[in-house]
């Protein structure tokens, strides 16, 4: 029961307590942003009066959902702003917005030429050109492309994977597929250790989160429909769908129905983050034997700083990732303060946002540098890029850390 006697007009639940404005990372650094309360529930009433009330400054919203987490009235403030952007904004997406958000397209084109693409993207002159022409900030470091896509690698293992007693489908996401198959390989290793064989979905497209925030709702919806079809097929074959990216997970479970009006109630509970899936398996099922897992004995403690990605905080599932890390021997975990890293997906790549993105992340970077940690761990790939670019530490996914701690 979400709440008794609630209207479909969720924005009416807002009491104007302004607590959300306290926790909005953008408002803290950018005075041009109307803020979650104002851009959300306040202006929604005005927009219903006349669409011309839409304030283009709502583009500064990062869609981090921290306003929703803070709201005592359960108002889906972030959703209200995203939907308003899609419905009312008169801003036409630029070429840059197109390239930043159409990750499948760019990934497919870049992957075969990965070594060249990576080299060219790393040159200062390239960055300067992109900065001047399409306004991708020159400080940004692009993640490298992988020559072999993850799906190609997994297809080669298909035979071996089918042998496991239990099967699941892996929603790998763009990052694992085009840039960092290693995380996918770690995931397979971990799931195999738990007795699960890993398969691909029949057809997987980018979850669409960047398409939504850059104004390509139609394309996002089309991709979402493909994904849901595949997910439904997997579920009908009794295979859970597991993802490693916290943002992909949140997008498929929540953004699809709330922002894109794609109904998914029949399969939503079958789409999970890997760490939650593992937690449930270990704690809720009766036939899993933990002693089957063998860990490498490190001998000295590994000091880990765990960063909760904003979207994971919204899901409320950082608990599972932290519990997974706690299973590993010789690990000292510090949970970092709940601060946004600032990148906001494609947000921080844009020249007009770069400075603010870095300001937003500054308290987090400081805590990381001052903590004497060996490693930062987080479930979101864009947080990883931001932390590696802005601090001196390496950043890994909990599944990777877990995989590395397991014996072969």
């Amino acid at each position, binding site marked *: *029961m*979400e*709440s*008794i*006697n609630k209207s479909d007009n969720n924005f009416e639940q807002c*009491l104007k*307590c*302004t*607590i959300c*404005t*306290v*926790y909005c990372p953008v*408002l*803290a650094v950018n*005075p*041009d942003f*109307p*803020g979650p309360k*104002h851009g959300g529930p306040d202006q929604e009433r005005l927009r219903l009066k006349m669409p011309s009330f839409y304030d283009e400054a709502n583009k500064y919203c990062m869609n981090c959902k921290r306003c*929703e*987490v*803070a*709201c*005592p*009235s*359960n108002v889906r403030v972030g959703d209200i702003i995203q939907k308003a952007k899609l419905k009312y904004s008169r801003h036409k997406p630029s070429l840059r917005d197109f390239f930043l958000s159409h990750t499948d397209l760019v990934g497919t084109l870049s992957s075969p030429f990965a070594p060249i693409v990576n080299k060219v993207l790393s040159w200062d002159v390239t960055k300067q050109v992109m900065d001047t022409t399409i306004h991708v900030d020159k400080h940004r470091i692009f993640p490298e492309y992988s020559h072999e896509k993850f799906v190609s690698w997994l297809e080669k293992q298909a035979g071996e994977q089918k042998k496991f007693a239990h099967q699941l489908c892996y929603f790998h996401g763009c990052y694992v597929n085009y840039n960092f198959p290693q995380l996918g390989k770690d995931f397979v290793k971990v799931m195999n250790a738990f007795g699960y064989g890993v398969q691909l979905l029949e057809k997987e497209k980018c979850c669409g989160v960047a398409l939504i925030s850059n104004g390509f709702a139609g394309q996002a919806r089309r991709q979402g429909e493909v994904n849901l079809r595949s997910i439904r097929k997997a579920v009908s074959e009794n295979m859970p769908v597991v993802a490693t990216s916290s943002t992909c997970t949140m997008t498929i479970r929540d953004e699809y129905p709330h922002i894109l009006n794609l109904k998914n109630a029949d399969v939503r*509970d079958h789409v999970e983050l890997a760490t*939650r899936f593992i*937690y*449930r398996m270990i*704690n*809720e099922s009766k036939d899993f034997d933990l002693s089957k897992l063998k860990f490498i004995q490190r001998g000295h403690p590994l000091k880990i700083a765990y960063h909760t990605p904003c979207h994971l*905080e*919204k*899901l*409320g*599932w950082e*608990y599972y990732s932290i519990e997974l890390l706690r299973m590993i021997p010789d690990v000292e975990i510090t*949970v970092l303060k*709940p601060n946004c890293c600032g990148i906001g997906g494609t947000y921080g790549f844009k020249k007009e946002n770069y400075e603010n993105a870095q300001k937003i992340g500054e*308290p987090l970077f400081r805590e990381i540098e001052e903590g004497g940690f060996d490693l930062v761990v987080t479930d979101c790939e864009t947080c990883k890029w931001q932390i590696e670019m802005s601090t001196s530490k390496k950043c890994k996914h909990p599944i990777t850390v877990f995989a590395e701690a397991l014996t072969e």
Partner: protein
Amino acid sequence: MIFDTIIIGGGLSGLTCGIHLQKAGKRCVIISSGQSALHFSSGSFDLLNTLPDGRSVSDPVQSLDELQVQNPSHPYIKIGKTDFIRLAEKSQQLLTDASISVGGSYQRNHYRLTPFAITKPTWLTMTDYVSSDQPDSLPWKNVCLVHFTGYLDFHPDFFQGKFQELGIKVQNVELDLTKVSIRKNTPLEVRSTNIARLFDNEEALDNFVRLLAHKVGDADAVLLPACLGLERTNIVNILSRKLGVEVKLLATFPPTVSGIRAQYLLKQRFMQLGGTYMLGDTVNKVDFENNHISKIFTVNHGNIPLRGEEYVLCSGSFFSEGLVALPNDVVDPICGLDVDYISDRKEWFASDVFDQQNYESFGIRTDETFHGIKNGQAISNLHVCGASLSAFNALKEGCGGGVSMLTALYVAEDILRQKENK
């Protein structure tokens, strides 16, 4: 997920209960559907300011006997005088232990200045804030009253009027934040939290000091709106040192920096002690078995239940949706416990908004040891504390903070006691 105690509600009451239990070695989880009402706190906590019949209270302990006569069902009466004293002391200790530095005592109310410069009695006040032992007697002859251009949530004229009434000479200083700021432009909505963030920056603070220093003159004290000290909790001391004069804060319209800080520090303390805090989640199913709770489900955790030996419900009042008012009913939306309320809606309110409103006393019915009651039966492993309780009026009696903390500690102790007896 298995915990020793599951606490539903992460405000002042939930955190107080959780901190105490964690200290005693219990593994607790707090589930909070959003940030709490503590964000509107004035910088002070109230224990008991007024009796139900309207008489002022200067010594809460002395007034308990009269309170018992006027309202024998009051949570303080359930707690009893001896425990009241002990737990009031403990509450103060808990705040200090969480790095929330407060002054005052349960033995005697002191006085604070509200954002409207009205003098009100109170129990504990954060040490940076203006307060006095006697009403209307402040220790200064000459103050420098600072305010910020465009900051509409602070009324210097109210304070000016008050100080003049008290015979204190006032120098008004208006500061333009654009001169302090290292940013290009000041916020469209100048709020206490934005200003506080500004001052967390060293350069901005130095600019501020430079602007202010030559305006202080021979003032005994510099008084500012409480827009300082979000991250840097010792900022008032630093400012005081740099200016060479006493600096004190004046409460502002909410959301308040003091409230945000208090919430943050209490949560921090709870987590330092090993507690798990789940923010932004709401309990949506409670499974009962033979008059006790076996497990609960939440929106975020879906089909993974939370199981605890003990449960504490401190979900707040109507504001936090701990109580929900339908057109003709008042319900507890989480556990469906029995609620004390009047069934005729006309009786919920008084015509004058400043008169006593009956709805403020509605709440969840509990037994002698604060166990929740469902369909007339006490639930053995469920306690209720804080604003969700019935039979008191936090507004009129000025006892919100006290009820939240004292009942929370009482419940925590009862849980530990119950465990020992098993």
